[in-house]
């Protein structure tokens, strides 16, 4: 079994925003499925992690929610990315790349005196 990872709040928000950008309006279940699939099962989200994150994003104005009929005729609450959310996504994506590059450079197997 692959290692399961605890998902961090900050990265979770980024994942949710990205998911909504790629797939358009989606309910909580859909978001969870997408994140689990994308992580190839290495991440699992229980409700207690996912829903507070959704509430927080909604409070910040990044997403908005409304009840709709789902594709198989079930009522579900759909989350849509807002303009603020898009900006926030772009911003956090850029930050994330920078941080990732930095950490990667830091951890690269490189010795004193070696050429970069």
């Amino acid at each position: 079994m692959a290692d399961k990872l605890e998902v961090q709040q900050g990265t979770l928000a980024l994942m949710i925003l990205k998911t909504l950008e790629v797939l358009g309006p989606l309910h909580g279940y859909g978001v969870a499925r997408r994140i689990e699939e994308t992580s190839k099962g290495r991440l699992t989200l229980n409700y207690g992690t996912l829903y507070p994150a959704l509430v927080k994003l909604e409070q910040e104005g990044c997403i908005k929610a409304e009840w709709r009929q789902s594709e198989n005729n079930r009522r579900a609450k759909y989350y849509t990315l807002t303009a603020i959310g898009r900006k926030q996504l772009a911003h956090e994506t850029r930050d994330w790349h920078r941080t990732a590059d930095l950490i990667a450079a830091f951890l690269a197997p490189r010795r004193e005196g070696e050429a970069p």
Partner: protein
Amino acid sequence: MRHVRAWLARLAGVFTGHRRDADLRDELEAHLDMETAEYVRRGMPPNEARRRAMVASGGLTIAAEAVRAQRGLPWLESAVSDLRYALKSLRHSPAFTAVVIITLALGIGANTAIFSVVRAVLLKPLPNRDGDRLLYLRQSIDGPAGEDIAFSVPEVRDFRAGVPALGGIAEVSPWSLTLEGDQYSPTARIKVGLVTGNFFDVMGLHPILGRLTRASDDGPGVPPVMVLTEQFWRSRFRSDPNIVGKQVRLDDGSATVIGVVQAAPFFPEPADALMNMVVSPHHLSATMVLGRTHRMTEIVSRLAPGATLEQARAEVATVYARMQHDYTQSYDPGSHFRVTVLPFKDAIGERARLTLWLLMAAAAFVMIISTANVVNLTLMRGVRREQELVVRAALGAGVLRLRRLLLVENLVLAVLGAATGVLMAIGGVSLLTLFAARFSPRASEIHLDTVVLAFTLVLTVSVALLLSFVASLPKEGTFASWISAGTRRTGGLNKQRLQRGLVVAQIAVSVVLLAGAGLLTRTMMQLSEVDTGLKTEQVLAMQVQLLPIAKIASGTDVRAADAAAKQGYERIKQQALAIPGVVAVGVGSLMPLEASEIQLDVKVEGRSLGVGEAMPRADYRTADPDYFRASGIPLVRGRYFEQTDRAGAGWVVIINQTLAHRLFPEEDPIGKRIAWTGDVLRFTPISGDWRTVVGVVGNTQDGGLDAQPRGAMFMPFAQELAMGNTVVIRADSNVTALAAQATSIARRIAPATPIDHVMTVAQIKDQSVSPRRLNAVLITSFGAMAVIIAAVGIAGVLAFSVSARTNEIGIRMSLGADSARVQRMILGEGGVLLAAGLALGVCGGFIAAGVMRGLLFGVAPHDPATFVGVAALMAFIGIVACWVPALRAARIDPAIAMRAT
């Protein structure tokens, strides 16, 4: 921005959360359904699918809780729930709540009100620029009315030249003028200060309209100008914004209003307006400017940059010593001439200080008693609530959470008490302002402002904190023992000791307050027994100044004006005599019991001043032949004035007993000759000729019932300028009813002359003691409050002790103790507390009495009657308070008591 928005959303969530719970449940259910459907689609049996979905969810309740925490503000929500809980629990014990709120309201209300006065009158920085560098100089001599004799112009000049530590000396001379009626208000006497041009600069005041006086307003030949005080501008000129540049008519001249000065206290006399010296030709005359003993000027000054108060004092002392050395004539050694340099703020707070700090201490004592009472009540309630708290602790509430619960509850109590107290204080402040106005020119600054309310808030929160931390809570890890301790606990020995200590403190503090109240009340009783020296109180006095002072000071046509004024008085007399019931009407310079502002040196024919003997001084008064009879001043020797003692006849004089004793201790004064003396006579219209003593009259309490006796010399009204301005009317009964008639007579004869102080002798007398009376009433009501609270306290603690010991008492009774014995036991328990409190209180009372010595009259600080009375009263009230619980203990039925275990 994003965060603010999120925070606002959460704040809103606190209040809308309950509605959104259903929504959240639906959402989570939908998620669960979809996940289940997915597992079914993959071929799982529905039950197994549902179970898997549930496991993956991590628990719906936990999720809902997490969302709720995110949605609102958890700490605020729990505070709100604490508040709700506190209100509920207080509603369940209405008696406790009401007693606590009222008790705290009394304490907090009294402290808020008195503190607002103390702050405005004593503590608040002066509104003047650099107000703490402002100084007041005072010249004093021994004897009555010698405390502030003011300065002469040459003296001021010497200080100006010789004291570099004083950066600017300003002169202000209290003066009184008639301001003629105009479109704003009718004619009235006003108080003005005649000031030098630098006055406002030294005082550090700025105009709110127009300009203030400056150096170019000094000296003769400049136009007279007037600066209005803020208060006078508002009341007299209805806050007219266009007042600057207008002319006002005064006595027999006019002046231009040049500005309005910011609100500020004026001292030693309150002022309606400030004017330049040119208004009074007298102030610029050679006599005034050159006469070293012609003291009419007060000095305000300001420390020079870098100078200290000590430097200023030392330099002033040096210059003053040189003055006394150079001009021995002007400073007789027997009178102990001295000059004090005081910070201005201290000088104006001087008269109020002792009284106000005493009231503040009394209010603090009330606070101590009421807090002690509330602490006791809380402790008792805490014991009853222990079970509840233990149950809560057992259900998972931490100690911190319990503490917070108590704190919220106590805050609610304290805030409700404070709110009630502040309402009471609002009512009290207007009364206290009137009271303080008698002592201080800063009374108008008394407000319940933010600083006062901050003081109240600090008091309130401290009480709440104190209450929350005296209650003992189960310690972490000891819940088990608390729970197993079972049903009844009595709060432990320590707590009982604390309760008893508090009761003793309450009684002691009450006794101190009562002792203070008792001494002040005795003072009032002593004062009311003081003989005014007048034989009757059916006397009405009315001040009508027919010869304006400005006329006398100007020196032109004085004789004619004087004759006209005397005719006016004669007509008023005749018409007043015609009023039915009037027995006698007299005219004199002053109201009976009023102290003269003119004090002069006196000499006796053929006798010189002994070495080191103080110069004899006397009040200058005039009286017509009927003045004494009308005022009820008794004749001791010789005769009253007669019609023959008129202008041009031989100079005669009547002296009072104090002066007779001072001048002629061994001899009969009748027929002896005395005279006014001293340099200063040259500057007055008063003659220094020898005058024959024709009569001695009884002393009267001039200047107040508590005043020292003053020597007085009465001149015949007809032989002096009519500086006199008082008509005295005596009736056979109910003289008060004559006021309106008397006023209308004067109004008819002198329509343009203001009429002041239409008062009966009873009113004059009353006015002189009313500040003391209010003081006594305030302290007495604080004392009464304290005693009531303390009585409730002792009764409560004993009652609690009885109910906690029901079981024990039951055992005692079943073992043979009868009810009388039980009753004695409880009474004894209370008696010990009472005795300890009384002993401590009497000691404290002695100390307090020593501090307030200056406020007493006719009663020793350690007055045994007062202390015995106070102790007996407290003991009586205490015993009554003990009796109620003792009776209850005696009625305990042993069978029931033991079964109740």
